[in-house]
């Protein structure tokens, strides 16, 4: 669909389409729908569960606890001045946000096929609403983090927030867009190659180990210099490391690494939208 330049017609439907068809005006028109999807996502996930929204808190807390026991107490990974639980909680919150953006958007076509085959709206509304839903969850998890932060601070831990924290929202946006980009790429390819579905689950799991979630980037460079490039080429490693630097003044912050992440994000997002657009046009015939 393209808006006709000929003002005689409101719009035309044909097989011709623009190379990149990102109609911001139309998405804006459907913003109410996007927020209603967010609302639906938030309130229906834990309906008819006993603990309800508490699950938003339980998941990261127990993961952080497990990581602390396994990686810090058993495997003796050093987290410096920072209490290892707080170190893990920061990493996990950030990583979980990215992960849920990626996995949530990656099944856009598969899980909405029924709706997509019956009604038109800009399909990108769905992945966008997933990212916003996750932003909401991330907000809640950040609140717990702040709670524990205060607890440790009051108990005399040597922690302080870095001044660069004002750039934290930018970091969150980068993460969201990166997850969105990859998710859209995968969601488009899954419609044709269903194998990818199986890859995502454990692929994301593996990626976590390469994203400096449970160890500082410096430790990798020190202990495994030969394989450190694996982590250094992973844009998410810089995001996690930078987030920890902002929140806990721990580790290093590399402007170069961050720039690298931004560039990769933009590239991924560009191709994500491109392929997503191409897929939304013909996926109903191939699903």
């Amino acid at each position, binding site marked *: 669909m393209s808006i006709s330049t000929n003002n005689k*017609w*409101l719009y035309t*439907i044909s097989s011709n389409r623009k190379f990149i068809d990102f109609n911001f005006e139309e998405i804006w*028109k459907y913003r*109410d*729908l996007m927020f209603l999807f967010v609302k*639906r996502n938030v309130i229906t996930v834990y309906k008819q569960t006993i603990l309800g929204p508490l699950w938003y808190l339980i998941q990261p807390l127990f993961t952080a606890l497990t990581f602390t026991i396994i990686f810090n107490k058993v495997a003796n990974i050093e987290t410096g001045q920072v209490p290892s639980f707080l170190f893990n909680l920061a990493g996990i919150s950030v990583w979980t946000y990215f992960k849920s953006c990626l996995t949530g958007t990656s099944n856009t076509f598969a899980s909405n096929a029924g709706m997509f085959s019956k*009604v038109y709206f800009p399909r990108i509304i769905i992945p966008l609403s997933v990212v916003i839903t996750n932003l909401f969850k991330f907000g809640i998890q950040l609140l717990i983090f702040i709670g524990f932060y205060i607890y440790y601070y009051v108990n005399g831990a040597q922690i302080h927030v870095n001044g660069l924290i004002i750039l934290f929202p930018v970091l969150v946006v980068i993460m969201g867009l990166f997850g969105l980009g990859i998710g859209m790429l995968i969601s488009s390819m899954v419609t044709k190659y269903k194998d990818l579905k199986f890859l995502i689950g454990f692929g994301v799991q593996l990626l976590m180990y390469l994203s400096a979630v449970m160890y500082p980037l410096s430790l990798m460079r020190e202990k495994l210099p030969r394989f450190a490039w694996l982590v250094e080429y992973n844009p998410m490693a810089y995001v996690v490391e930078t987030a920890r630097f902002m929140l806990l003044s721990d580790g290093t912050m590399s402007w170069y690494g961050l720039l690298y992440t931004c560039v990769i994000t933009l590239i991924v997002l560009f191709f994500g939208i491109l392929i997503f657009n191409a897929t939304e046009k013909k996926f109903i*015939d191939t699903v």
Partner: protein
Amino acid sequence: MSSIILKIENLSKQYRLGLIGTGTLSDDLKRWWYKLLKKPDPFLKVGAVNIRHQKSDSNYVWALRDINIEVKEGEVLGIIGKNGAGKSTLLKILSRITMPTTGVVKTRGRIASLLEVGTGFHSELTGRENIYLNGAILGMTKSEIKQKEADIIEFSGCQNYIDTPVKRYSSGMRVRLAFAVAAFLEPDILVIDEVLAVGDAEFQKKAIGKMQDISRGQGRTVLFVSHNMASVKSLCTRALVLEHGEVVYNGSTDDAVSFYLKGGADLLNHRKFGNAINKEVFHLHQISVKNTNRLVDDAIVEDAEIEIKTFLNFKAPNPEDYHITYHIFNEMGDPMFSFSSTKAPLKQGENIMSCYFPKGFLQSGQYFLSFFFIKDKRKAICIEKDIISFVVADGTRDIGVYMGKEPGYIRPQFEWHNAND
């Protein structure tokens, strides 16, 4: 006088048969190569016309082929056709769910489509929450829905349950609520696919009335696809018939409906047998089923007398020992009743035997006749199964009355008396 709001030009849609979706790499490469040479797509030429029961040589098939339609503002256009004729494909293209292979649709107004009621309903959400979600999916803004919320709830008749999750609703209530949202949609062009086939009689009446308001009262353009000839006849100002992806008829609603009903090779309401059924004692020439005083080519309607004529030559000297019996079956193949020519004895030589069903006796639907030639009232000397089939169409009904199918197959006109008269 009124301007053209929607124009469909040379619209075609091609599908691939067989393993759709895996799309072979070699076909993709060939396409790409032809594109590079600036030749037309090789697979666009080989597509065969979409005839389901006839196996085609090609792997590609045209679901729609060269459709040209112009719709004027305020028109209610009915689209009828058998299953697989391309109706849904056309609606899907108009609703921007799928793209045409070639051709273009131009519109001057916003199109909203109702291919299903309750798209996106979430069973965990309450009725009210679903009104907002469904409304937004159909293209309304939050403030628009807020304005109409009270009307929607009232129209649905679900006031008591509006804050209960939809999963506790009966399926009927769900449909009511969903239709209510859709009914308050205000696009320039509304595209509707058979959504009226749901709900109880009272609600259907309400729904048809609402549709009437939308099209006549508010002057909105409507494209309406249905199998229900009664509702097409009462709602549409014009209709077209699709067959194998092509428009085969485009004109007045009544003509389109009768064109559709008598079309199709498997429907034979009159047959000449030639020498096919030429037995020792009799020679069957032809059988026809039609409304009395109408032509065999006209559609048979339920609100007129139906005449079944049998033409045969009786050759033996003892015609009084024989008679004809027909068994009538409904479209499910269930036998309904039998009727015999015992009251009108056969004569030697040519016979034209007529049998009449009173008006309104057979309900709309498809029927099959089996022919029996009986000797001595007990022995069938000739049995021809499903010798004739015919379709009885809905008569024109008044606006606002029930448009669906009544239960059963016959509707005899019994006598009624009020003792106080």
